[in-house]
C-alpha cells in the first residue's frame, strides 16, 4: 500500500475497515513515518474539534433554551392539560389516592358511628330515616328498619 491509498484510511474506527484493508494499513504504518505523523495529526485534530465546539457552546447562554422548546410543544401533549377546576381536583385525587379513598367511605363511617351512638344512648328516632350524612357527592342514609339498621351509600341528589 502506498501513502495515497493509506491516507484516506487513517483515523478509521476499530473494526471499520475490512480485515484486508486493516492489515495493509497496519503494514504501511509500520514502515511509513509520514503516515504515522498524519495519524498523529488526525488524533490531535479530533480533540481540537471536540474541545473547540464544546468551548463555543459553553459560552452561549442557554438559560431560555428549554423554555423555548417547551413553548413549541402543544399544551395538549401533556397529561392533565388544559386543567379546569374539576380536572385539577381529579388530578389531585389521582395523586392522593389514599385521601380520595378515605373521603369516599367517610360518609358511611360517620353514619355508622352516629347510628351506634344513638343506639347506645337509647334514643328513639323516626322509624324510617334516622340520619343522612353527605360529603362531596356521596351520601349515606341509615334506615332503621324492623330487621335492623341498613346503611345506604350513594350519590347525593341536589337539593336534599
Amino acid at each position, binding site marked *: 500500500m502506498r501513502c495515497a491509498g493509506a*491516507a*484516506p*484510511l*487513517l*483515523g*478509521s*474506527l476499530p473494526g*471499520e475497515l475490512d480485515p484486508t484493508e486493516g492489515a495493509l494499513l497496519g503494514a504501511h504504518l509500520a514502515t511509513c513515518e*509520514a*503516515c*504515522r*505523523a*498524519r495519524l*498523529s*495529526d*488526525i*488524533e*490531535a*485534530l*479530533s*480533540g*481540537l*474539534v*471536540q*474541545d*473547540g*465546539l*464544546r*468551548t*463555543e*457552546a*459553553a459560552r*452561549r447562554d*442557554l438559560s431560555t*433554551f*428549554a423554555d*423555548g*422548546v*417547551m413553548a*413549541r*410543544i402543544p399544551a395538549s*401533549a*401533556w*397529561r*392533565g392539560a388544559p386543567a379546569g377546576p374539576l380536572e385539577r381536583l381529579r388530578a389531585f385525587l389521582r395523586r392522593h389516592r389514599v385521601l380520595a379513598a378515605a373521603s369516599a367511605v367517610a360518609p358511611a363511617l360517620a353514619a355508622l358511628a352516629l347510628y351506634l351512638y344513638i343506639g347506645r344512648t337509647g334514643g328513639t328516632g323516626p322509624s324510617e330515616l334516622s340520619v343522612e350524612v353527605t360529603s362531596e357527592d356521596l351520601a349515606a342514609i341509615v334506615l332503621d328498619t324492623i330487621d335492623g339498621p341498613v346503611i345506604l351509600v350513594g350519590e347525593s341528589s341536589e337539593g336534599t
Partner: protein
Amino acid sequence: MALPDLELVERARGGDPEAFRELVVRHQRRVYAVALGIVKDRDLAWDVSQEAFVRVHQHLAEFREESSFTTWLHRITARVAIDLLRKERPGRRSDVADVPEAVLQEAAPGVLATALGTNPQETVLRHELSARLTEALGELPDLHRAILVLREMDGLSYEELSLRLGIPKGTVMSRLFHARKKMQALLAGYAGIDAPGRGAAP
C-alpha cells in the same frame, strides 16, 4: 439523584412535561455544539437545536430503547442541521475539489500534533486553537464540515455517515480526509506553524 435518560423518556411519553424539560436541559449544550459545528451560525444552531428537541418529542413513541437516547437525539439533530444546509444553501459547492491542492500542502504531516505537544490539555496553543475552531470549520465546504463534526463529535462510522448523507462510503472517506487536511492546514496557519521547519511548538 438524577433520573436516567430512559426513565425521563418514559415519563415524558406519559405526558410529564417536567421530565421532558429535564431531558432538554440535560442535553441542550451538546446538541447545540453539534448543530453549531454543522451550520456554523450561532442563531441557526439555536434554531436547529430547538427543532431537534421538538422532533424528538413528536417521535418519542417511536424511540426504541436499543439505542441510547443521546445517539437518537444526535441523529435527529444532524438530520435537521443537514436538511437546513441543503435548504438554505442549495447552490453552494461541497465537492472534494473545493479543497485547493495548495492548501493541502501547507502543513507538513505531524506538525499539528507536534505543536500541540504530548500533554495537549494544558498547552496554551491548544486553548488558542480551540477558540478559533469554529472559524476554521467555517472555511470548509458544508458537507465536509458536517462529515467532520459528525465523525468527531458523535463518532459516526463511515457507513452511518454514508446513510445519513446519502453519499457512497468511499466519498465519505475522501471528504473526511480532505476536511481533516484542510483543518490541519488552517489551524497550523493560525498558530504560525504552517510551513515546515518554522518551529512549531515552544
